[in-house]
Structures are given as C-alpha cells and as structure tokens.
C-alpha cells in the first residue's frame, strides 16, 4: 500500500478534520519546526529538490517558480501568496476534496510557502459554488489564528502572515493565475500578458506566487519528510502523489490519491471499476476538459507529465473524462466548446470570436445541418486558436484541444453526421 500524504486525514464517511484532529496527526509540526528555525532559502532548496510540479494543470516546477520571487528588501511593502482554489475545470473536483475535508493542510502549506517566499499576506481565491469549503476554510483560519499559526509574529517569531478567503464572483477564467489576480484586485478578470510574471509584479503590482491548492497541500509533507522521501513516492519521472479522478460512464467515478505516474489502466480499472456494463471506452480527456483526446491504446500510459505529453495530450489536472462508445463525440465536443466559448473573458480575438463560431458550427453538425465545408472551417479555426502564442492566455488553446484532437480521432463521426444529416448516436446524451 502506497503512502497517501494528501488524503491521510480523509476517508469516506470520516468527518472533516478540525484543528484538534489535524494536530493529533502531526499537523502544524512542520510549521513549528520550520518558522524561525530554518532559513527560507533552506526550505526553497527542499522544495526544488523534491521536484514538486504544479498540480493546477501546467505542471511547472514549484521550487523554480518560487525562486523567481525577488529577495525582499526592507520596507518594500506587501508580498503575496495566493491559493488558486477556483476549481472550475469541467470534470475536476480534487481541490474540493482537500479543502472540504482537510482545510488545515492547505493552511499549513500556505504558511510554509509564504515563509519561504517572504510573503506576509495570503488569499485563498475560491469559487463561489464551494460553499462548504468556504465555511470550513474560514473556520479553520480562525482556529489557526487562535493558535497563532496565522497572524502577527507567528509563534513568537518575526514572521507574520495574514490569510483571507476570497470568494470569487464567478468565471472559469479566474482560474488563470493572472486573471485571478486582476479579479482579486477588483478589476475585470482578463488575464495579464507575461512577462512580467506575478513573481515580479503580481497582486497590486507586488511580488506574488499563485499556486494550486493541491500543490500547496504537498508542502507540509515535503518539508516534514524531505525531498528524497517525496521523490520516492512517484512511480515514474515525477515526484509525489497525485489526486487522480475519473468521470463518465465508469462504474465508480471518483477521486483517488495515487503515486504520480500510475497507469491509466490502473486508475480506470482498479479504482474507477472499469466501464459500465454495455459501454466500451472510446477515448478520454486525461487532464480535464481542456486537454487533447487520447484514443489509441492509452491504457498503459503512465499518468505523468512527460508521458501524456508525448502521447499528444497533457496531464492537466489529472482528472479524466471518459468518452464511451454510445456517446456522440461531436455532441461532447460541442458541449465543451459551448462551455469554453461562454467562459472566454472576451479580451483577445481568437478566443472571443473564434470559440463561438466553432461552437455554432459544431451545433449545426450535431443537429444535422452541417456541410462538408464546415470541416475546413473547423480545421482552420483550430489552427488559428490552437497555438499558445496566438492568443493572450492559455484559455483558448486549451479549449480547442478536444476539438483539434477530436477532428483527428473522430473524423468518421463528423462525416457521418454531415452525410446522414443527423446524429448517428441515440440515447447518448452527454
């Protein structure tokens, strides 16, 4: 049985972990052992050595990200740490689990992280729909403040850190870290052009680190057990564990903490219980809705950043959406495009104008009014929207991935819709 540090306080039926329960299981020991006792650079080295990579989707090495924060100068003003808890990727529900059932783990991770980057203010930017998580996080912050894990001069040291929960007003794009910062500042949630990166000019123009909830939850364990231990948890090139999820027509949709690099087959068959009876696997989106379909024998691929990349997709958030053989792929893609077009911030042309057009064409094909020429437009629009530098942020290039891969893998399905002037799938509502 492998170690599951992130979910060690979480089990089905178990009540959420409060401070007493968290403390009793070694909680905040890392804070007590580190703050004021270990040099922040020392903590940074551990994180760098651990090879922890961001769990929000991009997989950027966390220690490297932190190392770009300039060294603090006296009296220069606030520096910020922001937990990205705006979990809105369709099919993704891993951070919710961590926040609802073990909120102190996130708080401890944020204390240690802010200590490392010398941040004195923290925000948990959380989507409005996570009512339970919002309440539990706020309660947990109060508990931590009462114990002086948060607030001024934490545990008698010179280090102060104030943490606030900010409930988002909505919009998927707020999960993009710079759009999140704009939103947090009370501005339109348009992403910012990078460079400058938030490490240099982030929240209110100050040095800022934005990390995914799951990433931050790893920190206390890495600090406690060390980089080597953490490296040993992963089964491939990557380090640590990962919350994997599966949704779609599987027997047991859910979310599991597994060694990073666990194969898709194991996730699908051992944990999700395999496909529902009468359904075959047709393809899957490995890392949430904004990743490319995998179809050709994906089952033995390890779910790590490099392997999935080489297979032509991205591990993303690690939460798979399963496409079965009785669900119309065109309908599924149209549905996703509807979501992404609606969630465009409206800033840059390819995303704002390009996605709704694609969505319109897909709706037409699905409804049986498509024409062969539509395929050319879809191809062209996929090219136009698809490259990362073509757009202002990663929203549209990610959004178009299910389409561009779908055009490749499900070409006959598209053509069948167009030639038969109807959707060949029946009862396959997505």
């Amino acid at each position, binding site marked *: 049985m492998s170690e599951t540090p992130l979910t060690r306080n979480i089990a089905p039926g178990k009540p959420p972990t409060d401070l007493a329960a968290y403390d009793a299981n070694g909680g905040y020991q890392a804070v007590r052992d580190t703050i004021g006792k270990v040099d922040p650079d020392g903590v940074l080295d551990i994180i760098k050595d651990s090879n922890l990579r961001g769990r929000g989707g991009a997989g950027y090495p966390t220690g490297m990200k932190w190392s770009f924060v300039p060294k603090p100068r006296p009296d220069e003003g606030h520096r910020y740490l922001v937990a990205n808890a705006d979990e809105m990727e369709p099919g993704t529900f891993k951070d919710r689990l961590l926040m609802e059932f073990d909120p102190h783990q996130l708080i401890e991770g944020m204390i240690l992280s802010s200590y490392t980057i010398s941040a004195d203010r923290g925000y948990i930017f959380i989507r409005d729909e996570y009512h339970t998580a919002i309440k539990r996080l706020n309660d947990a912050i109060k508990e931590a403040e009462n114990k002086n894990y948060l607030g001024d001069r934490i545990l008698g040291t010179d280090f102060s850190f104030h943490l606030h929960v900010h409930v988002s007003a909505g919009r998927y794009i707020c999960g993009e870290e710079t759009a999140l910062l704009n939103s947090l500042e009370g501005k339109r949630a348009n992403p*910012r052009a990078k460079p400058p990166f938030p490490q240099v000019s982030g929240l209110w*123009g100050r040095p800022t680190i934005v990390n995914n909830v799951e990433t931050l939850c790893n920190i206390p364990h890495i600090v406690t057990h060390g980089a080597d231990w953490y490296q040993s948890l992963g089964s491939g090139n990557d380090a640590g564990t990962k919350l994997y999820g599966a949704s779609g027509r599987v027997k047991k949709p859910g979310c599991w903490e597994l060694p990073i690099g666990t194969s898709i087959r194991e996730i699908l068959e051992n944990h999700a219980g395999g496909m529902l009876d009468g359904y075959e696997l047709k393809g899957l989106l490995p890392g949430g809705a904004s990743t490319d379909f995998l179809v050709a024998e994906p089952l033995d691929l390890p779910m790590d950043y490099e392997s999935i990349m080489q297979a032509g997709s991205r591990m993303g958030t690690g939460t798979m959406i399963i496409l079965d053989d009785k669900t119309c792929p065109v309908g599924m893609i149209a549905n996703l495009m509807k979501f992404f077009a609606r969630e*465009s911030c409206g800033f840059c*042309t390819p995303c*704002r104008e390009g996605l709704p057009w694609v969505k319109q064409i897909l709706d037409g094909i699905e409804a049986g009014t498509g024409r062969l020429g539509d395929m050319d437009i879809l191809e062209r629009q996929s090219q136009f929207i698809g490259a990362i530098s*073509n757009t*202002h942020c990663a929203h549209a290039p990610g959004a178009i991935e299910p389409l561009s891969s779908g055009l490749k893998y499900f070409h006959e399905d598209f053509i069948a819709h167009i030639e038969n002037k109807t959707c060949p799938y029946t009862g396959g509502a997505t």
Partner: protein
Amino acid sequence: MPTIKVDGQELEVKEGVNLLDALLSAGIDVPYFCWHPSMGSIGACRQCAVIQYADEEDTRGRIVMSCMTPVTDNAVFSVDAENAATFRDSVIENLMLNHPHDCPVCEEGGECHLQDMTVMAGHRNRQYEGKKTTYPNQYLGPFIGHEMNRCISCYRCVRYYRDYSGGHDLSAFASRSRVFFGRAADGVLENEFAGNLVEVCPTGVFTDKTLSKHYTRKWDLQSAPTVCQGCSLGCNTYTSERYGEIRRVHNRYHQDVNGYFLCDRGRFGAGFVASSKRIPQSGIRNDQGLYDAVSLDTAITKIQAIISEGTKVVGIGSARASLESNFALRQFVGQENFCNGMTEIDQEMHGIIIDVLQSKLTTPSLTEVEEYDAVLILGEDVTNHAPRLALSVRQATRNLASEMAGNTQIPQWHDAAVRVLAQNHRSPLIVVTPTEDRLDEVASSSMRLMPRDIAELGYALAEEIAGNTTSSTPDVEAIARTLLEAKKPLVISGSSSQSPDILKAAVNLSLALKDRNDRAGIFLCANECNSVGVAMIDNERSISELLSTSPSVVVVLENDLSIRLGQQFSSSISSVNNLIAIDHLDNSTTSASSVVLPAATFAEAEGTLVNSEGRAQRSMAVYKAQDEIKAGYHLIDALAGNERSSTEVRSELSEQIPALAGILKAAPESDFRFEGAKFPRMTHRSSGRTAMRADISVHEPKQPVDEESALSFSMEGNQQQAPASLRAYTWSPGWNSNQSVHKFQSEVGGEYVGGDSGYLLFRESVDIEPFSKSTQAYSALIPRYHIFGSDELSAESEELSTLIPRPYLRINNTTAKNLKVEQGDGLMCTINNGNLQFAVIVDEAIPDNTFVYPIIPETRGMNGISSTDFSRVDDWVQDMDPLSPKTITTDRSS
C-alpha cells in the same frame, strides 16, 4: 540602436520600442487595432502578428504579436511569412463575424481603420453564416454617437477614456463575445476629452454627432490646417466643411502641442461659425436703433465719413483676433491710439507671461509637460481654462509609474503591465485652487485657498526654496520638499485666477527653483487664443485707459467690450460718438455700434496666433467666405484705402515688431509651391466638387482662388508632399483614417518629416528678477471657468451650448444665512439692466462673504458686481442641477 532583420532586410531601430512601433516607423505596413502610439500595447486584438525566428537558421519561427515584442539586437522577424499572413487574415475574418458590414451607412466609412486593416490583411471571403451579435446603443450626450454593433472589442476606448484621460463613466461590461463598451446608463459622457473616442475607435462605434447631423464622407470634405480658437494652447486641428458649412473638427497631430488628442471644447466648439448670431452683412444703425443691411462698400464709405468728421479715432484690438488683424488696426489708428483689447489685469498678467517666455526660465511645451515628475498648480483651473494641458498633467503624474517599470525591466510600452505595477502610485501633483478641481483625483495633495492666499503661498514657497526664511508653515515646507526632491519640477499657473499676484509668486517660485535645479520649468496659461500675440504687438494701455482719452470714434476689432468692462460698459462708451464694430457674432458691442462690418471667422480667413508657450502658428482658411464677409485685416485695410494680402500684412508686421519677426517661419507664404502647384484642401477622391451644382448646371464653375495662402480650393496638388503647416488632411495610400499620420512622422510619435508647423518665437533668454511682493485688491467675487461656456465663441456652438452650466453662486453657510438662503435656493443681481438669477450651492471651502460664480454667457457682464448686489429670489424654482445639465433626448440621431 539595435539592428533587427525583417524579411531579409536589416533595420536599425530605436532602443526600447516594440516591434510594431519599429516596423511602422520604418515604413513597413503591419495591421493593428488595439495598439496606439500614445497608449502603448496590450495585445488584445492579435492583428499585428508576425513571425519571430530564434536565429538566422530557424525556418519555422513562431507567431508573436509585434506590439508585444521588444526589439533586441539581431532579432529575426518576418512580416510576409505565409503563416503570419494567414493568421492576420484569420484575425480579420473572426473580427468580422459580428461586424455588421454597414459601411454604406456608417459615418466611419472612408476613413475607417477597420476597413483599411481589412484590406491590408487581405481577407476577402466571409464564410460565417450565423447571426450577428447585436447590442442596444446608448445616448452619450450631444457630441458622441454610439453604435455598439460595429464594435470589434479592441478595448481602445476604455483604455483611452479611463486609463489615459481619467474618465470614470465608460467601461467594458460583460464578457465573452458580448463585451459591451458604454456607460452604466444613458447619459452625457463626463470626461472633458471624450471626443477623442471618435478618433481612437478604429471603427464606427463612437462617432461625431456634430458631423452626423450633416454628414459628409471624409473624401468629400474640404479641409484646412487650423489652430483651435478655444483657449491659449493653440492645439492643431483640421477643420472641414462642405457647402460653406463647418462639418467637423479633427485632431491635427503636432508633436509638441496636442499630440494625438484634443479637448471637447476644441473639437466641438467650432459650431459658432454657423451661429444664428452670425453677422452676414454690413449694417448701419438707423434712427430706430435697428440695423439696415447695406453693401460693404456703403458701410466702408459711411465709416470713412464718420472718421473724417471725428476728432480722435482709436482702435481696440482683440486677443481672439489674429496678429494680422490687430496689427492692421494698430497701423490704421496709430500706435498711440491702439489698445490690445485687454483689461488692466489681463495686460499685467500677459506682460508677466511674456517676461517669463523671454527669460531663462524653462517654458515647456504640452508634450514636455508630460516629462515633469512633480507638478504644482498654483491657482489655475487647468481643466476648464487650458483643457488640453490637464491631459498632459495627468500623464505627468505617471512618471513614477514609468520609473518603477524601468526599475523592474518592464518596457514602457507594455501599458497594462506598467499600470499593474504602479497601481495608484503617482508622481506628486499639488493642486492649489479656490474650489474643487478636476485634477484633485490624481493629485497627491490639494489645497483650497482663495486667490490672495494662493499668492501668499507662492511667495512663501519662493522664500523657502531660496532659503531666505526659517519660519515656514508645514504646508510650505512639504510642498517645497516635494519640488526640491523632484528631478524635474514644474510650476503651472495662469490667468484664470485673474490675479497677477499669483503669477508673480509663481515666477518668483520658479526662479528660486531654477537656481536649485536647472531642469525646473514653468507653464503659464494665457487667456485666449492670441492673448500672448496681441500683448506682444502692444501691451501699453488698457481699454479703460484708451477710452478715458475721450475718443470720438472707436473702432472695435472682434471684441465684446461688455465682457471686459462689465458694469462700466454703458458709461464708458456713452461719450463715444461712433462705435464701429468689426466682428462675426452679434454681441453687446456690435449692438451699440453705429456701423458693423462682417468679419470672417477662423474658418474663412488665414491668421497667425501665438499660444501660451510663445509658439506662432498659422491657421488657414477652410473655405472662401461669402462676398461681403472678409478677414478683419482686409476690412481694416478697406477703411484705410489699402489693399494688402495677408502675406504683405505679415511682412510689415515682422519688420515693425521685431519680437514677432519669427511669425514668417510659422508657415510658408502664399507663393510657396511644390512642383509648381499649390496644395489641395480637397482630397483627390473628392466626388462632390464636380457634382455639387449639377442640378443647376453641368458646367462646373471656376473654383474660388485663394490669394492668401499656398492652399487651393481644389483637389489638384500633392497633399502628401505638403509641409505640415499646409497639409489640409492626413491621408496615405491604404491609410484613410487619421492613423495615417505615422506616414508623415519621422518615427512613430515623432516630429513630421520636414519639421512641425509653427515657430517658437522666444529663443533667447533674458535675465529676469523676482517680482517684489505686491498685494492687489481682491474682489469678493471669484470667477470660475467652465470648459463649456467660459469661452466666448465656442459657447455659441449649438451642441456645446447645451452643456453650459446654469448660473450659480457657490457660497458658504454663513454667507448663505446672511442672505437668508440655503442650498438649492436662488439669489439674484442686476446686470446691465437685466435680472440674473443664480442657484445657490453651499460649499464650506469658500470663506465668508465670498461668491464663486461661473464664467458663462449670462454672467459676462459680472465684472464690477459686488457682494452687496445679491438678494434672495423668493419664487425660485430649481429646474436642474446647475453644474451638470443633462440633455437626454429620445432622438439619438439629433
């Protein structure tokens, strides 16, 4: 300077600019929408995509937005690469999905940046068959129309309106493919520079309503390079007409003056030319006190008879008339019988301004103002008196942001990033004015002082900075410290305070600052478009002094004496046998004259003006006036029996007044030619000229001949080769909008190839001594300027006049109690035999027994009214907020 390679061609480019800027400066066309030379880059439209290669060997490259790409030495790019061209084509295709293609009925058509960029990007066939997004449009006031369906979401409008000019009431609303650019609700756009939206918008979302009401395509407009008459700053404009009617005013780029932007008074204030008060013909007053319309010859003969019978003939010039007209009048009546048409206070203030301009003190241009990193405004209502300067001051407060960006290696053109980094950090701006000021919102501190105390503060600052005192107040110490700590401190003052003391204090302060920091500057705003110019011709005696010499005949040039003399107007002219008025709008002075001659406005006559910074600029006639209407100098010459061209008048002027000799360099004279031809006022595409009279006769009449300038009333000639002062419109092949201006600049945002128009007259620096502290007598009545209403001429423009405040008096509670009124009540006084009622605004920042009143048409005769003249109006009904008249109409087209 970095060298880059673009499509195989090596280019030396300016350090620190972005690639788009560098490419346009090098004459390479790249389509763009969201980038603007004054507003930098944000990377929203993705239109300016090019390919960047890793090195010479790289053949794939990657798409980059040229506006977001720094130029670095040896960087390799391609504009022409097929994938870049395909991408740019796709951007247009996608932008066009929801664009209504209503070019035939769109006011932007023919000068539309979207049209130009569409053609440039090469996109032709639209394959979109869906519905187009539609939006409701809003009423945005009398100036600007709103047609949201045309929007391509480039975000320029909100960036200009909010970020650049400091407006609050225009925003981007909603998201995805339904972003709406407008106000939260219908209403008049509040910002004083809103009119620039018309030019900032790359398509027809924001259009000029004053043009729409009698719309003409750009190619059918006859235009001329003109100089704004609205205030003393001399912004460069293109004024355009058709059928003898002014249709619109557009910005005419000048590197050192207005750059790319005008204020709304300048843009929408030329309508006075067609005012119902316009004097179309000569008139002789009959026995009933009415005017008989007579021919110009008859009127001239009549005046000559009056003059020959007169004992003493004097002339009163005008700060709103050209140098040429003022000089002709001075020649006509003789130097000793001329005054420049100002009051004593105005003369003293403009004397000080000229002293400063010719001194060693640094007097920056509007563009240079933007470079100062600490600004003190001493008593000047910048936004309402010299509006375009306020826009420059707003940019000056961003120097700290630029510095922060520089320290963080963020390029200055990376607009959003610079703003994120700087947030609310601004360079210091200290606003010291009698009442609340529009610039307070970007000021580091604001002080409310009455004029006397502002002067005191200025003198105290001068002493403190010179180190002559050890007992300054904390305020003085703090301001002095701010100014001394700055790299480039600037003091702004001006004549709106009506206090020569404040100007003197500002000068003393600037002299003290200059001793400590050679980069210190001073900007003094003059009063009217040619105040500095006429004061340079002659600043010897005031109107009152001249009238006290008992003249029998007074020739008044383009000047309403009732404004200058106020309550003394009637008594001052009562002993004058014959008042001769030369003007273009009916006013109290023309109504009191024996004979009135119809003068041309700026739109019909060439004339030279000198602005606040001492820049002589020539404004060209836009169209030929009707027969009887003539330039002021021609009418005066006719009285004298002279016949001179404006060139000849200027030539004599430059000989007789050496300080003004430089005006000959302001623009080429009438004999200037390119390849033997004059320069056209009409576009080469003008379809109207040969057709406009075709219903009468297919034979086209001969075009009027312009004997006054090197411009012609025709489409023949080479506009592109015209020097800046003679370019009647801006157009370049493929660039039909005003954005073609970069084709004429030495580099983007730089001076024109061949030099900018106009000529700075003050080029030597004479030593100047600090003024000895004086204390003038202050009235209990403090005038307050308003961008709409305080300028005599623009206030007569139809649309602008609807935004003029109603008469009000700002008083404090004690004063209000003494007069038995409160907020919202009415007060009245008697002006020139009429009653004028005011709404009471209670403002505790006003001292006891002090009355702040607006300078608006109704209050022009207030000069001489005292605090005891006000009494309560018992039956007062306040119909609207006196400060923000709203003209919400249901008719969007009007």
